[in-house]
């Protein structure tokens, strides 16, 4: 069973994402704020992070940076969930340590496939290194 930390401030999106992930058998850790997300990242050892980039308290990229600064921060895959407006700047996300991104609106048909693809790529990278 994989443990997924979902950082998302919008309850509808949270419900949508967690519903799809739960249906696919993932265990869910929910954080509505960036700070809480960073705390849960440290305390609950998630296997995957789905991070909304537009957050009300601190910027998603700052959350990403802080997560990567923790002890095992580099080993956990982090996927950014971005609004369409942000996808152009994917370079900045990658630079900040993001393993991949999924563009909103989330397509339930393809969501699990997108997540799996990123995880597989991350796993292959880990194996290579």
């Amino acid at each position, binding site marked *: 069973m994989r443990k997924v930390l979902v950082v998302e401030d919008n309850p*509808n*999106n949270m419900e949508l994402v967690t519903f*799809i992930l739960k249906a696919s058998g993932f265990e869910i850790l929910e954080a509505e704020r960036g700070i809480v997300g960073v705390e849960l990242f440290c305390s609950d050892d998630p296997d995957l992070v789905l991070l909304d980039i537009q957050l009300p308290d601190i910027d998603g990229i700052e959350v990403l940076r802080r997560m990567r600064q923790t002890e095992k921060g580099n080993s956990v895959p982090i996927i950014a969930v971005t609004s369409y*407006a942000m996808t152009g700047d994917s370079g900045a996300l990658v630079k900040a340590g993001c393993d991949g991104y999924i563009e*909103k*609106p989330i397509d339930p048909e393809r969501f699990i496939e997108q997540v799996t693809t990123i995880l597989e790529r991350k796993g292959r990278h880990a194996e290579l290194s």
Partner: protein
Amino acid sequence: MTEQTEICLSDIPIVEKQKGGNLVKSNKRDVLPLVLCIGDVIPILHPDSASTSVREFFVVYVRDVTSIEPILSKDAVDLVIFSSPNFEALLSSIEQCKKRHTLEKIPVVTFSEELTEKQCFTLFEYGVIDIFHGQYSSEFVVRKLNQLVRLYKATLGDTHELHEVKSRQQHLQKKIENSETEVQSLLRKLRFEKLKSRELEQVNFVVNRCLSTISAGNFAMVAASSERELAQSMCDVLVKHAQYTQAWVGFLDADDSSSLNVVAHASSDGKSIPIALHCEGSRFGCHSVTRAIESRVTVVNSSISNKASCEACWDVATEHDYNSIVSLPLKDENRTIGILNVKAKSGNSIEFDEMTMLEEVAGDLAFGILSHRSRNERDRLFNALNEMNSDLESKIRSRTRELELANHKLKELDTLKSLFIASVSHELRTPLNSIIGFTGILLKGLSGELNERQRDQLTRVNRSSKQLLELIINVIDIAKIEGHRIEIFPAEFSSRSVVNEVMAEFKEAAEKKGISLQLKGEEDIYLYSDRKRFAQCVHNLVSNAVKYTEKGGVEIVQLKKGKNIELSVVDTGIGIAPDEISTCFQAFERLPTHLKVKAGGAGLGLYLTKKISTEVLHGGLTVESKVNKGSCFTITVPCELELES
């Protein structure tokens, strides 16, 4: 007595006797002295006597003194002898003679008996110079008489000489007088010459003064910086150089020609001589000034000494020792602008030459004043122009400031608009994302099985939501591009990957319509550009092509041409009429209205694609089309996007 005389005279043969008893000159008479014997005949002097005396003298006997007149007056008697024996007769005869005649210096002697001494003295007192008596010898008497005659003749001769001297003296006197007249005339001439030379000196002096005045006046003309300064300088020059008692200048008001303002004056003694005299009934307070202004000719009043002419002027002239006033109008072509008034002393009363000089000075002054005025007018216009200029400049500045402010406001508004769009887009998209997401979950059957109708209806909701999202995204992009706020994120990618993504997206739709969708040209072209925007362009073109094509298919052709990539989307659709081609890239333009409902969309796709390909990717979008044959949209962009700094 006359008989006797006649007898006596006739006895003298050499004497011619004239009728009437008067004696006349004879040759003999001229030779012998004429002796007049009054009274008794003297024997020794009688012509009958044998003595020689008769040859010595020419003797005329007369009885008494009454008949001697003709002889005395007609002839020059050289000697008179009174002859009588007794003293009393002698004396009475002398007295009678003296009563009637003047014997002057003719020597008088007596011939008588022997006389007493006292009688002799009496005779001497009567002017007798010698006394003879019968005892004297005839020789003695003759000798004595001769002496007396000689003496008398000598005296007479002296008298002649005296006459001669006198006449010579007179002649000389006359000569002297003539000389004096000549000298007088010469003196007169000299005086005239002197006068003339003094006059010339005076003229010379005046001419020099005039020249000096004109020269100084010219200097003043050049040096003065204002019309008042010029007027003052001219007054000073006229007093200092031309040595007038006073000079003043008055200007006539341009609007009100009835008021005269004195702007400059100078006086020789420094004392202020009154300027505005109060001539009664005079328009400008002084008759000559008024006349000069009104008639526009120079008025000379050189006889103020005449009290009757103007009492007020006379009083002031007397008090300040001048006797002439010259009033010169200062005039331009058709107007009198003022007056130059000059007062002069008797010592330098105004000469004809000076009038010419004064008129010249007045002309210069008028010219100078007018040129100052025109210069002032020009300066005033220039200043006004400058003022207008600076006014305009300040207006421009304020307009610029206003524009800057407006611009600033616009920028603020633009920022607000961007913020608004960003915020609205977020707010619009978030619920749409939920709608799309949850309808997707439902359609996937994750929340339970759906019947056919539910599935169909949920599909419509899902599709409409996606259309709405796309429209919102397009509007936001257009706003960003038009507001130059679009962010460009260049990255390396292959064109093929983009085309594959887009083809995958429309694979289903194409299959559903029964049209082909394929890529021609297998080669891969690598780009360094904004992938998302490039993909957006390809997406929009393929979307349109699929949308408007009912038969045949859509072909994507990619070619590398130099530094650019040429990507064409060719369809076999409805095509675009030539007259619509020019407007197909405009916002909210769509192909024939009847297709609108069927095809759907807001008509922003081509407009946005054109904008992205040109303004974001620095390339271009072109179209070739034939109605009912199909269209070919070609996007040409550089493979390597150069970012503007």
